[in-house]
């Protein structure tokens, strides 16, 4: 057996096209994850002990079990509860849930970076709760979280490959379909791997850039922006 990458060149357009479902699922799952994380954080802020306990158990269960298992449960068990989702939706839901739990933990860490004075000033000015959250805390929180969110995108992109196991025709499953026909698994997988690597390395570069701009003091960054424009 030899490595002959030329045999898969005709399949490259098909693999590139398969990026669309992969990226769409990843984007949807990340958005669902962010919304879910916000919801979990707000619910925990109620400081209602039983609710916090339930969220704690949920988070621990999701972190404690393999993503593949969460995906299988979402696909095979939800229908028993009367929620019969197509593979794509079930998979997106599962990845979104895992993301939500992780991003909620990031949010918790992010909240620790916000100084007391910010909230106290808001209260002193007579702002209502939703304004303090929406106008003061959330913008700063998202700024602090930005690199983690982009990093989470790479995690989510990697998780979408698991959806091939529940018959979602994304990049990975397309590659499997191709090598089932041309008997060239290695070459086909190398092309798929190159595509995954390109997407994720680009995202990592964005995350690294955001991380650098985060650690720069904001006033200095603003000054630089003003002086250059």
């Amino acid at each position, binding site marked *: 057996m*030899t*490595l002959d990458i030329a045999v898969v060149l005709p399949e490259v357009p098909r693999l590139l096209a398969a990026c669309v479902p992969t990226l769409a699922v990843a984007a949807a799952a990340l958005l669902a994850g962010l919304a879910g994380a916000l919801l979990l*954080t707000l619910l*925990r*802020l109620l*400081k209602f*002990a039983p609710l*916090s306990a339930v969220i704690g158990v949920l988070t*621990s*269960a999701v*972190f*404690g*079990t*393999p*993503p*593949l*298992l969460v995906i*299988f*449960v979402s696909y*095979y*068990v939800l229908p*028993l509860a009367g929620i019969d989702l197509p593979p794509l939706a079930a998979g997106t839901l599962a990845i979104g849930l895992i993301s939500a739990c*992780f991003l909620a*933990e990031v949010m*918790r*860490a992010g*909240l*620790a*970076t*916000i100084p*007391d004075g910010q*909230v*106290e000033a808001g*209260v002193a000015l007579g702002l209502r*709760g939703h304004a*303090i*959250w929406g106008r003061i*805390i959330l913008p700063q929180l998202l700024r602090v979280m930005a*690199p*983690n969110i982009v990093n989470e995108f*790479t995690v989510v*992109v*990697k*998780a*979408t*490959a*698991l959806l091939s*196991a529940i018959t979602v025709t994304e990049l*990975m499953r397309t590659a499997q379909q191709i090598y089932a026909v041309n008997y060239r*698994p*290695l070459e086909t*997988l*190398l092309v798929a*791997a190159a595509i*995954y*690597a390109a997407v*994720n*390395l680009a995202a*990592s570069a964005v995350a690294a850039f955001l991380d650098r701009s*985060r650690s720069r003091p904001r006033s200095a960054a603003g000054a630089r922006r003003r002086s250059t424009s």
Partner: protein
Amino acid sequence: MIDVDLAPAYADLLGRGYLLTVAISFGAIVFALFLAVPLAMLRLGASAKLAWIAVALVEAVRSLPFLVFLLLVHFSMPLIGYRTPAWASGLIALSLYGAAYFSEALRAAYRAVSRGQLEAAAALGLSRTVVLFRVIGPQMVAPFAPVARVNAIMLLKESAVLSIITVPELTHASLRIQAETFATVPTWITVALLYWSITAALATLFTRIERGLSIGAHRRSVRRSEVAARYLDLAPAPASSGERRNAAAVLQLPRSTISRGKSRHGTVGR
């Protein structure tokens, strides 16, 4: 709903799957830790060319879904003359995948130790081995351990993917039982609990190691005003606990405490 009669018949299958999952993931964690050391040394070493190769390898592996990496390894084994059984491909792939992650963590931990420590050791004329094992090494434990814990748990969870190449581990066993009995819910719950137990064991193990080996690691406890706590604190912390923890940290402060820069962003783990 939970059919108890089924349990004994399939306990054996499940038990074997559980043991295989534990064996493969613990084996992979150990191999990965050993492989990570030379990789990290290449990255930190003097040769720019070797460092570049190591970076390229690590970054490439880390950017791939484990399933893709696993199949690449599985299908490329015949190229180098071996037709490995699925479990062996799985173990190799999991070890290599883990090595990429652990080497990155090692490199970051090395960078986290302040330059001054290296310079002071050099100024004292300590040998390279002594510097590595007595000066830098112990200080690397604190930044390395939490990341290593996250990576170890990740490897355990990725081992479920081996079911796709028919390794009869826990997930594979559960799929089989489910297909034969249609007892979907009890099977998944059992398997989830089994995974959960291994994750918890791993987390405890690494936390023990962390506590046992690290020096100069101190917990940062945030104490907030009442007003701010309403918006920024997620748990109703008992008023005295923060103070007590702080006091404990002060009392245990070792001579060599190094005020390590913020642990503000990086410490979140899965």
